[in-house]
């Protein structure tokens, strides 16, 4: 059976171990089919339509051998890093209840793969960071909604505190005949987990998950989750929308193991949204980002590492690289840090933010709450108004040049003056976005999807490793993550919708000398104090643009001169 078999430990210890593992397994089952990142289904052709003769090998996708963890409850599951990380936190909590909220996040751009759970939940104070209230930044066209709440708890009969269940059970269990109770508990736990496994696939949210991971279509929603040990009660109205399914508790000699789920039955209404007016806008934006163009611009840049391989089947996965890019500024670019401090961060202690940002597993919910984070999203929805930027916006809009700089693997540059090399980006944006979305999608994946694809294998590799020793080492994970996404080929660019920008862009388009590549490259090589402030250009009038253009010309000339001086030396 499992590892408790033949365990010399006492009966209560065995039971506690079973209960602990039960929690871990339950969480694994839940997140495996709710957290879109590690999709068990497209792991390796696991998603078999009911066909008369499914391939025999499909039953053992990742490996034919069973790992020790698989043997618990005789149920072999696929890797789910989200579950692994969360269970580590829970294991320290002395059989506290475990509440897993599955959150539907609706936003045109929120593609966070949700690989990672609410990492913040690993420490008590951070948990407050996630509220179910979604209107804090109501202007954002984004909503989150708890669509499922799984509640696992072990109700100890004797003691009030869950932590003392060991000591309390030692007395009571002696009345029963030794092994039978733990055997019975184990068998019933197996049954309960089988039920959970089947049930979770029948609930409405599963369809969302399935669509998220299986279709190449861009979805306007994502699923997030939050694991905590306390219940944040629903409002009466919320609760009215929820249905409840209570699994029959497993009685033990010293308590009972309870599992129940509150779920929203109307989830499906929300999923039928890909046709909202936002979507074409988004695609344009998405595609118009410099992801593809810099390839041409800096062919020798690090992006060239990403093979121009398979594209379309991985359409959905693009989101992953998006996520990567949302994370990357924190580690790669020192300049955003001021933004964090001045951003209206609520409830989250500043000290925990960097960790959060560095954390590749940070959750959707976190993004929702953190506007500074949002600024890295290429969303028109979140763009500030086209009017002159408020001070906090400076870094927010300035990621366009950052993107460029990143492509050329230059260090981040402080804000100084707008420069022509940055202004060429809007030009590209403009021309690109005129194309058919389809075409654009055709372009972009060449750099992007292959990346994601690599991510996939890299991740699984890393996590398989993690599985072997069953440890959760954020550091190593981060490492493999970085490795996987090494070449930062894509970076979301925010486009102002102001007509002035269009005019400016037009102008720049005609200013041929400005995008001679050689000068751009010179810039990149020469000037480490360059600027990241194309945002200015975005928010200014045509007159301003002309003025800037003139400045650029002068700058270019001077730099070209410098460059000529330096090149012979180099």
């Amino acid at each position, binding site marked *: *059976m499992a590892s408790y078999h033949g365990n010399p430990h006492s009966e209560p210890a065995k039971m506690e171990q079973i209960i602990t593992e039960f929690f871990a397994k339950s969480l694994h089952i839940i997140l495996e089919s709710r957290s879109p990142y590690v999709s068990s289904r497209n792991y390796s052709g696991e998603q078999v339509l009911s066909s008369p003769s499914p391939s025999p090998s499909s039953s053992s996708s990742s490996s034919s051998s069973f790992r020790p963890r698989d043997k618990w409850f*005789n*149920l072999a599951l696929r890797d789910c890093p989200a579950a692994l990380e969360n269970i580590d936190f829970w294991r320290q909590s002395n059989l506290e209840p475990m509440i897993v909220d599955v959150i539907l996040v609706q936003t045109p751009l929120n593609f966070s793969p949700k690989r990672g759970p609410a990492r913040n939940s690993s420490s008590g104070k951070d948990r407050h960071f996630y509220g179910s209230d979604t209107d804090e930044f109501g202007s954002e066209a984004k909503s989150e909604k708890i669509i499922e709440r799984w509640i696992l708890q072990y109700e100890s009969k004797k003691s009030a505190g869950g932590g003392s269940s060991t000591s309390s059970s030692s007395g009571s269990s002696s009345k029963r005949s030794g092994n039978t109770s733990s055997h019975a508990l184990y068998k019933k736990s197996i049954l309960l987990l*089988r039920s959970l*496994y089947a*049930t979770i696939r*029948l609930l409405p949210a599963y369809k969302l998950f399935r669509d998220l991971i299986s279709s190449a279509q861009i979805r306007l929603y994502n699923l997030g989750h939050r694991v905590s040990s306390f219940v944040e009660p629903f409002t009466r109205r919320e609760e009215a929308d929820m249905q409840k399914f209570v699994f029959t508790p497993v009685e033990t000699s010293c308590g009972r193991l309870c599992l129940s789920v509150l779920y929203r039955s109307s989830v499906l209404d929300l999923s039928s949204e890909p046709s909202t007016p936002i979507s074409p806008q988004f695609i344009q934006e998405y595609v118009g980002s410099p992801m593809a163009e810099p390839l041409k611009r800096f062919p020798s840049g690090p992006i060239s590492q990403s093979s121009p391989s398979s594209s379309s089947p991985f359409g959905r996965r693009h989101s992953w690289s998006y996520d990567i890019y949302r994370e990357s500024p924190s580690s790669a670019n020192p300049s955003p840090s001021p933004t964090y401090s001045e951003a209206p961060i609520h409830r989250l202690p500043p000290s925990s933010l960097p960790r959060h940002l560095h954390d590749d597993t940070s959750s959707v919910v976190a993004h929702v709450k953190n506007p500074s984070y949002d600024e890295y999203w290429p969303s028109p929805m979140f763009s500030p108004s086209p009017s002159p930027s408020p001070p906090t916006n400076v870094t927010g809009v300035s990621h366009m040049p950052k993107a460029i700089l990143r492509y050329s693997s230059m260090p981040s540059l402080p804000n100084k003056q707008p420069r022509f090399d940055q202004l060429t980006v809007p030009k590209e944006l403009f021309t690109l976005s005129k194309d058919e979305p389809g075409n654009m999608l055709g372009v972009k994946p060449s750099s992007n999807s292959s990346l994601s694809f690599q991510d996939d294998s890299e991740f699984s590799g890393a996590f398989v490793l993690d599985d072997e020793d069953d440890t959760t080492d954020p550091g190593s994970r981060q490492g493999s993550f970085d490795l996987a996404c090494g070449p930062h080929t894509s970076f979301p660019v925010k486009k102002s919708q102001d007509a002035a920008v269009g005019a400016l862009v037009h102008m720049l388009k005609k200013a041929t000398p400005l995008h001679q590549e050689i000068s751009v490259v010179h810039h990149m090589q020469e000037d480490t104090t360059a600027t990241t402030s194309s945002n200015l250009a975005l928010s200014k009038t045509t007159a301003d643009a002309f003025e800037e253009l003139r400045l650029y010309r002068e700058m270019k000339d001077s730099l070209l001169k410098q460059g000529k001086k330096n090149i012979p030396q180099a």
Partner: protein
Amino acid sequence: MNCEVCQLKELDIEHFEIREVLRCILHTVLFHRALGLVRPKDIDLELFEITYVQCGDVELERKIDEKIDQFIDRVEKHPNKKNQICLSFYEVKNKQATWFTNKVERLYWEQWYINLNVAQHPKGISGKSYSSKVVVDPGAESRSARRAALETSLRDVLFQIIRFVNEKKDHIPPIPNLEGVSFPYEITISSSSDSAFGMDMLKRMLQTGHPTMLS
């Protein structure tokens, strides 16, 4: 030892839906009774927005498909309305007195009755193709409504299975081995007219010895 019996809600299905519906139900039950080490496999139904779980046992899959073939065969030969499939789990006990006759006794501890009402197609049997053709005719709408209703019912049946599994746990014998499909099982088909139905059951009970008589 008592035998728990679960009568699953009757489903009104059409001929081309038999295979998917039966697979879905049988595999779901067996997944809940495969208490050995399994690596579950998700299967999306083609006709319905339903995902069920198989326990990833090729042999089991083959057996189930075999039985479904038999069932379809019966339905075609005897187009009567009541069709029942029984999935039974048992323990094998050697009868002391008759061991030399190689007679083993099956102690049934659980039986699942799947009740299907296969509609008779006016156009006759449409063969084995169970593709959901989108036919533009006035009946299309009612057909999709019927399909949706069946999907709901099938989902109900799956939840019925899950509830049953949840509520009844004490009658399950100890897990005999670590193989995925841990308990011996049999799938029997009773496709007979209403009148003969009871007789058929009685015969089967006499043959196998009804578990309640033995307990």
